[in-house]
Each structure stands twice: as C-alpha cells, then as structure tokens.
C-alpha cells in the first residue's frame, strides 16, 4: 500500500524518467537553450525554460520512441506558440522517422495569454498526428491527471491512435466550471467531484471506448499500458470510420437522454457501481467485463 509515488503526482520530467528505459531520454531543445515565451514575459508572467512541454526521444522496453510530456502546473499546461511548435515538430519528426510518438498529456488547451497562436499550433499538430497515422506510426496519448486533456488538447488527444488513461485522468473539451456557468449549478455542480469524474474521468471514458486502456496510477502501469500499443496502429479507413460512426450514433441514442453517469456505467455492463467506483485500473476493467 505504500512505496511508489503516484504517476499523477510526478512532474513532467519525472514522468518521462519513470517510463523511459533508464538513462535513455535525450531532450530536444533542452532548458539551457532558454527558449521561453516572449508573450508571457511581456505580460509579467513567469516563463519556463521548456515552455511547459518536455520533448525528446527515448526507449521504452528497448523500442525507440518520441516522447513529450506537458507541464500541467505551468499555465495549466496550456499551448502557446513555442509549446505548440515543439509539439508539432515532434509529431512531424515521428512521421519522418517512422518512430512511435507518445504524448503525456496535461493541458487545459490553448494558452489564452498567447491568443490564437496556440490554437493554430494545435490544428497543425493534429495534421502532423494524422501524417503519422497514415504511415502507420503509432501515436499514443497518456491522460493521467485531473488537469487532463481539455479544450483543443482534448480534441487533439482523440486524434491519436490510442489513449491510455488512469482513473485520475480527465478527457473532455469544456471543463465543469465553464459548463456550470453556462447551464447552472443544478445541471452541473462543478464542486461535485464524484460527478465530475464520472462525467469526464478515465473510467467512464474506458467504458465508452474512448480510452483504449485503463491502468493503475503508477509509472510501471503506465509504461506497460504504452507498451501494449507501441507495435500497433489504428487505420483511418472507410471501414473504420463507418464502424465508428455507427458506434457513436448508437451511443448517442442509448445515452443521449441519460443525466446520471451511473446509467452509462450500468448500460456499459457495470453491475456493482459502488465496488467499481472504489476499484482502479485493471480491477475496474475486470469488474466491468464481468458484468457484460
């Protein structure tokens, strides 16, 4: 019950060190190059030497990968011009070299302080991700923290071949506070953490099939989760998109009128909600399967 630090508590650099083979990570545009945001500097906001994203190459289980980790505590991990350009460059390098690309996501989306630059960067990165996919180069998003993947980065994460999540991870576009403001507290109480996680958390995303793996909140489990997909890719084919269209239509039809996430859990085969709530990673997966 004790010993390891939870994956979601690590810093971006620690996350990389913990999942890459020992000593294998080589950082691109490392901190001594001091490529920092001129926007933040002009606004009197502290800058960071990596602009909120650590990128480079490494090995995972001996396999070469491109690896990026966003720094959630730095302006919410949000994407500015430099941050975004690093991300685009990395996926482009992955496509060029046909090496899998893993993004450890922790971002609320576009960095507002840099206006539309970050938005365009996200769009450019989406293009680069699909370049990889066309070449069958695996792209994997790891979503494991409460900052999670939101806004444009939420959408970007769904463009990758695979998503590995933990129960702490959240995936969405609009955050609970925004929705509460919009719909009222009655429709969405953003302080109701259980509801927030059942709306956007890893377990619900896994049940619906938007997360491809649900793993324990430890570096070892996340590494294993990534390894499962390093040799695979998910083709963008007519058969695939038609099947997905059907699936998403069915989902909307089945749950579009549901207000309670428990209905989704039940509908996706979870019988004992309370036990499933307490379970994590593979335990949850087993409980969900058992019910099906």
């Amino acid at each position, binding site marked *: 019950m004790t010993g390891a630090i939870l994956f979601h508590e690590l810093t971006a650099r620690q996350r990389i060190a913990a999942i890459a083979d020992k000593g294998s990570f080589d950082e691109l*545009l490392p901190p001594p190059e001091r490529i920092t945001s001129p*926007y933040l500097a002009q*606004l009197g906001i502290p800058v960071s030497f990596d602009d909120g994203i650590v*990128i480079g190459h490494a090995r995972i289980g001996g396999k070469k990968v*491109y690896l990026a980790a966003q720094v959630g505590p730095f302006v919410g991990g949000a994407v500015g*011009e*430099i941050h*975004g*350009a*690093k991300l685009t*460059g990395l996926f482009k*390098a992955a496509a*060029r*070299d046909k090496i899998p690309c893993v993004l450890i996501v922790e971002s609320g989306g*576009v960095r*507002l302080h*840099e*206006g*539309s*630059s970050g*938005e*365009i960067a*996200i*769009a*450019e990165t*989406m293009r*680069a991700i699909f370049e990889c*996919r066309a070449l069958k180069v695996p792209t994997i998003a790891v979503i494991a923290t409460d900052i999670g993947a939101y*806004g*444009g980065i939420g*959408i970007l*994460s*769904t*463009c990758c071949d695979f998503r590995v999540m933990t129960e702490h991870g959240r*995936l*969405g*576009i*609009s955050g*609970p506070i925004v*929705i509460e403001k*919009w*719909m009222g507290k009655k429709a*969405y109480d953003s302080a109701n953490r259980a509801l927030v996680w059942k*709306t*956007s958390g890893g377990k619900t995303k896994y049940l*619906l099939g*938007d997360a491809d793996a649900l793993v324990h909140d430890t570096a070892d489990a996340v590494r294993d989760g990534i390894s499962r997909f390093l040799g695979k890719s998910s083709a*963008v084919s*007519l058969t*695939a*998109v*038609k099947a997905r269209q059907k699936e*998403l239509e069915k*989902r*909307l039809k089945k*749950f*579009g009128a*549901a*207000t309670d996430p428990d209905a*989704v859990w039940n509908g996706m085969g979870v019988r004992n909600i309370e036990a499933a709530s307490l379970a994590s990673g593979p335990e949850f997966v087993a409980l969900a399967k058992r019910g099906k």
Partner: protein
Amino acid sequence: MKKPTPKKPSARAVLARLFGASATGIAIEKSVLTGYAMVDGAKVCVIGTCDGTYIDNEAALRLAAHVIQCIERQPKTPIIMLVDSAGQEPNRVAEMLGLASYFGHLLSCLELARRKGHKLITVATGQAVGGAFLCYGMFADRIYALDSASVGLMPIAAMSAVTKIPAPVLEKLSKTMPSLEFGAAPFALLGGVEEVWSAEDDVQAKLAQALANSSTEDNRAELGKKRGGRKLALDIRQKVLAESAR
C-alpha cells in the same frame, strides 16, 4: 456568456453569395449545413454550420455522415467547409458521452477524405472560434475567411475576464502581437487564414481559385512567419526536426 445571436446576412444569403443558384442543394437543419453545390461548373460537397450555433454530438455526427457519404458516392469531390459556430456545446451530457471523441471522429472522416483525394477548403463565414473551428474548419487544406467573420480564439474582453489581465493591457499588447487580436485579418497574419475575402470580392471566383490552388501541404507556419504574425513557430519546429535528425 451570451447566447449566440443570429448574424446578418442570413445563412441562405451567405450560401447564395458563395454558390449562386446551386446553393439550393444545401440543406440547413438545426443550423447544420449539408449538401452539394456547384463551384465554377463543378460539383462540390458542402458541410458547415450557421447562425453561430454550438456544435454538439449530433451535429458532429451529421457532418461526419455527410463526409462519409461524399467519400462513398462522390469520389474526389472537393469538400467546402463553412464555419459559423460560437463553439462546442457546453453541456455535461455532451461531455459525458465524449464530445471530444465525436469531434475526433469528424476529423478522422475529413482526414480519410483528404487521403482519398478530396480537396478540403474552409470558408469562415461567421463566428469561427475555439473548439468549433478546431473540430473541422481548421483541418482544411486551405482556410479562407470573409472579412466580416469573427475568427480567433476569443475577443480581448473575454480573454481579459479569464486571464484576469486588464483589457487595456491586452489591447496595447495586441498592437505588436496580432495573435492577441480577434478577427479574420490578424488571424491571417498568423498564417491561420490563407486570404481574407472582402465584401467587394467576387467570392464565387475566389472559391474557384481556392480550389485550383489547393494543396495538402500545411503552409500555415510558413505564412505566419512570412506575414510576421507568428515569428517563432516555424523556426522552432524546424529546430526540432533538425536536432532530432542528428
């Protein structure tokens, strides 16, 4: 936040301006556009939004369905994407069902179309902001905007409200940093829009030209650097590519 207010001219008027008489082939249902029209005598597929609507799961699916239909039945027909949407539907059930995945699916469909030889051209006709722009319009080969369109992340007042940075400070900075400014012209300076079309322009001719000049090569970073609105992005991307190649 305010509810979207329908902008003038009407959606039909915008469609007529873009596609002339052939615009009647485009259906508008719950502010989602799907159909076919003609540009310079050639058939195009049209998907889009109007009235500044919010895009929800259903809207995304309808757009995606039309793209799939086009791929299956109208091979290589160019797809014109019209954008007038204030954003993704901010709704708990939409989020619970995975709105992001619905958007990801729409993007996958567009990617498939591109790979199968469909040209993708976007025209921002009204509001083109946030997730609504990202989920299809910004994914085009080339992006154009009417000069009356509201293009960008968000207006300075909204940016100020969220970042708590006083609006005058942002106003002042936006003079030297076009990315902070809101609108089609500054967005073009960043490379996000290829060209802004004005009220005087013959937009049908422009659209035909856009189709002729289309390329699947993403040129936005180059444009941003050339136009001076986004000076760093291209160089940093190149640096990543160069250093990773070593």
